[in-house]
């Protein structure tokens, strides 16, 4: 039997075993999910604070880029102007609602933090969390959720909006946490796509320490 034939036989046996194994797992009670099911998530509505000089209509050509100054939070910091979200067309005046979907930016996340007391989950490495994290954020990684029911879930509420973040950019950890949380009944899920660096860069509330992380280990 030639060398190439042996290589092909090993490859074919492995491919057959892998495909059969995948059928068994995907047909079972714990199939592998590749991402969150955005269709069954619930958007979070928040009020867009009135800009300075209230009474003037927002710009209609690019409403998402209109600078908006929200009410100051407990930290007294004033966040930056870049806001996403979808402006509710039923309320086009200066005090309308924003409907926030699955992927949001740090400024949107701050509005959830400030107005609704959203719960934040940090999906980075433990040492990164200990060095600094969003004020009040819980440490939660995909590995913790895969291995069972992390203790931190006992204090989290599926009825509150949940914002998950990691380092931003190509980081997938926050999306992976979201897909597992969906299985635990969380529907108001948001991923802060520009990550912790954007939160810090905007001057939003942070804290450091491992106490909260260790308390739920």
């Amino acid at each position, binding site marked *: 039997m030639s*060398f190439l034939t042996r290589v092909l036989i*090993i490859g074919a046996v*492995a491919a057959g*075993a*892998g*495909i059969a194994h*995948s059928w068994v*797992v995907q047909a079972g009670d714990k199939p592998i999910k590749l991402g969150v099911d955005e269709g069954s998530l619930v958007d979070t509505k928040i009020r867009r604070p009135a800009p300075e000089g209230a009474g003037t209509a927002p710009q209609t050509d690019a409403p998402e880029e209109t600078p908006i100054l929200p009410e100051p939070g407990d930290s007294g910091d004033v966040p930056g102007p870049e806001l996403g979200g979808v402006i509710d067309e039923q309320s086009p005046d200066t005090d309308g609602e924003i409907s926030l979907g699955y992927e949001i930016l740090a400024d949107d996340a701050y509005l959830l933090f400030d107005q609704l007391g959203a719960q934040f989950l940090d999906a980075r490495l433990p040492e990164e969390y200990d060095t600094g994290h969003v004020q009040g954020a819980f440490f939660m990684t995909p590995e913790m959720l895969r291995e069972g029911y992390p203790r931190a879930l006992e204090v989290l509420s599926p009825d509150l909006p949940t914002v998950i973040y990691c380092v931003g950019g*190509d980081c997938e950890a926050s999306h992976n946490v979201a897909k597992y949380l969906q299985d635990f009944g969380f529907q108001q899920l948001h991923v802060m796509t520009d990550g912790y660096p954007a939160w810090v860069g905007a001057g939003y509330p942070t804290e450091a320490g491992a106490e909260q992380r260790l308390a739920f280990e």
Partner: protein
Amino acid sequence: MTDHGNKPTLARPKPGLGSVLLLLFRLLAGGLFIFAAAIKLNDPAGFSEAISGFKVIPEGAGHLNILATFVVPWLELIAGVCLVLGLWTRASATIVVVMLLGFCGLIYSAIYREMELTCGCFGKIDFVCDGPLGWCSVIRNGVHAAVALVPLIAGSGMLGLDALGWKPCQRDPDED
């Protein structure tokens, strides 16, 4: 002792130091592959997430991610077992080397794109290298490939299943 009619044959040589060294190389290269495969097969969801992290599979091709999640560890397992047993040694060693070089390429592409992720090579276990993906993982895989290169070139030695099929018949020089 004769075989093939009246033709004289050589007795099967006893395994020497070379065969023992080859066995060690096969055990190391194949054994590590079996270990890595077992970790991945025990946590396919984790390996699937590691594959997603590399962002080499296009959006909408989730089935390729699932395929890779299961076929890659099975290929590691079967090639690793063949290498350890010394069965089809050169073929299985070739698969091991090619896969490791492929992993090196993937890790290098992640470093080049400045991606902060874990390779999922050994699951949660930090084998030699810890923390996010870096040059340590490239070097580790490169050394592993170099170890597998030895049985690829030299074969199984006399301490492998391939040696059972050893047929040292000498040709009669007067025959065609």
